[in-house]
């Protein structure tokens, strides 16, 4: 098991992709700290982690609030004996016509998607640096980190921000042997973006037919990529964006 003996923090652990990431990490041998605003959702996933024989700790946290994150990090460190993996997966997506996006839509999107990732990376990164054993930070971006979609300039900007945050942190944290990478999902079943367009089974089929690899992403597709980046095998990979999107970005133009 590739991640035997390691402990990971996963934010947004109660959601669709978050659950996929948590279960993939647990299957690979890691103990998990599940972070979410929705304690009940996180508890449900934690139960599955324990069924896999791994330990799980749920910490209700607001990733946009420093005090909340500081508290979570110290509880996680004490419980685990040492966090070596952080997955910044918490995110919100609010779609509106371009002239109707409000300041609070913008602020909330930026706070959760970008500030939250930065705050967790800084605070968890600091404990990793102090422990001196290196670490892995994995940010969940999106195909919208580089390819726009209608109605979401604020979401796109936050995910584009993840792309550069990843590269900049990779540079800053390399001296501590901490690698920082991101993953860019496309449309994932049970993921946040799917709730709207995939609620209808027929719509789901239409969307899948437009994806080059002819299927929707599954949370475990993202999970597998997280396990690869978190493993020893990827110790020389840092500052990259790895798209796990079935080729959606390829199909830009000339569709």
């Amino acid at each position, binding site marked *: 098991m590739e991640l035997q003996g390691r402990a990971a923090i996963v934010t947004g652990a109660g959601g669709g992709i978050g659950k996929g990431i948590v279960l993939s990490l647990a299957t690979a041998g890691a103990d998990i700290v599940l972070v979410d605003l929705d304690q009940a959702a996180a508890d449900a996933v934690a139960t599955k982690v324990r069924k896999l024989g791994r330990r799980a700790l749920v910490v209700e946290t607001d990733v946009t609030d420093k005090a909340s994150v500081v508290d979570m990090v110290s509880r996680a460190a004490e419980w685990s004996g040492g966090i070596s993996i952080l997955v910044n997966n918490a995110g919100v997506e609010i779609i509106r016509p371009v002239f109707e996006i409000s300041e609070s839509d913008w602020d909330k999107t930026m706070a959760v998607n970008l500030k939250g990732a930065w705050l967790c990376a800084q605070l968890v990164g600091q404990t990793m640096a102090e422990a001196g054993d290196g670490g892995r930070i994995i940010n969940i971006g999106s195909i919208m980190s580089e390819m726009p979609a209608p109605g979401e300039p604020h979401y796109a900007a936050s995910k584009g921000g993840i792309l550069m945050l990843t590269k900049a942190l990779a*540079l800053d944290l390399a001296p501590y042997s901490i690698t920082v990478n991101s993953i860019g999902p496309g449309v994932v079943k049970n993921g946040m973006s799917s709730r709207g367009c995939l609620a209808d089974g027929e719509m789901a089929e239409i969307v899948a037919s437009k994806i080059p690899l*002819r299927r929707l992403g599954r949370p475990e597709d993202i999970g597998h990529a997280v396990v690869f980046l978190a493993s020893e095998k990827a*110790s020389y*990979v840092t500052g990259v964006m790895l798209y796990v999107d079935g*080729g959606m970005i390829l199909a830009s133009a000339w569709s």
Partner: protein
Amino acid sequence: MRLQGRTALVTGAGTGIGRGIALLFAQEGATIVVNDYDATSGERTVELIEDAGGRGVFVRADVSDPAAVGAMIDAAVQVSGRVDVLVNNAGIDLPQATSVVDTRIEDWDRTLAVNLRGVFLCSRAVIPLMKEKGGGVIVNIASIAGLRPMPQEAAYGASKAGLVLLTKQMARDFAGDAIRVNCVCPGPMEKPTRDRLEFLRSRQTAYEKRQAFADQIPLGRMCKPQDIASAALFLASGESSMVTGVELVVDGGFILT
């Protein structure tokens, strides 16, 4: 055993990255068709595979030669009737760094012929076989020199940039046939052989020169074949079944600097 029951053709597998990939894939259960321009090193890779309990067969070919590529694919099919994974790793880089002005025309042509046309020739021969069998995986070994302009490396850089785009182009054309195409972009590799020659030539400690270079790399060391082999394994295995058309940079953060 993530490649159990599969057959992988690895070009340029006599040394370095290619050998690293061939050995790792064999360890993961694949039968390896080992290709190289040089028979001695290619046969040695097969020996190493077999010593470790795996299965390998050597086929000599110059990947820039269409007839040789055709014969190589025929030989590969003889081995197990299929090619599930194609790793286009064969590539050359001229020993002297040259800008467009200083590059001889024949050197430009040769570099492009092996690094880009070689991938074109091998891929076009293997893709129809993969389609017939319901799918497959192609992993191209490109370079960070294909993403950022490397000083005085005109032909090499152009060939690798072409390879990155060709990777995405092939991914687009054949996604519907369940063929995934991705590339790995290595950073500067440790080159023990070149270092030994450099020491003999210049009497400077090659280790010191190499270490000074490694200090410029954020993760503090040069790339090893094992780093590339691990990335290639991820891209060849079922764990990346939703990944196609990507360039996976494995460079210790070098292009961030």
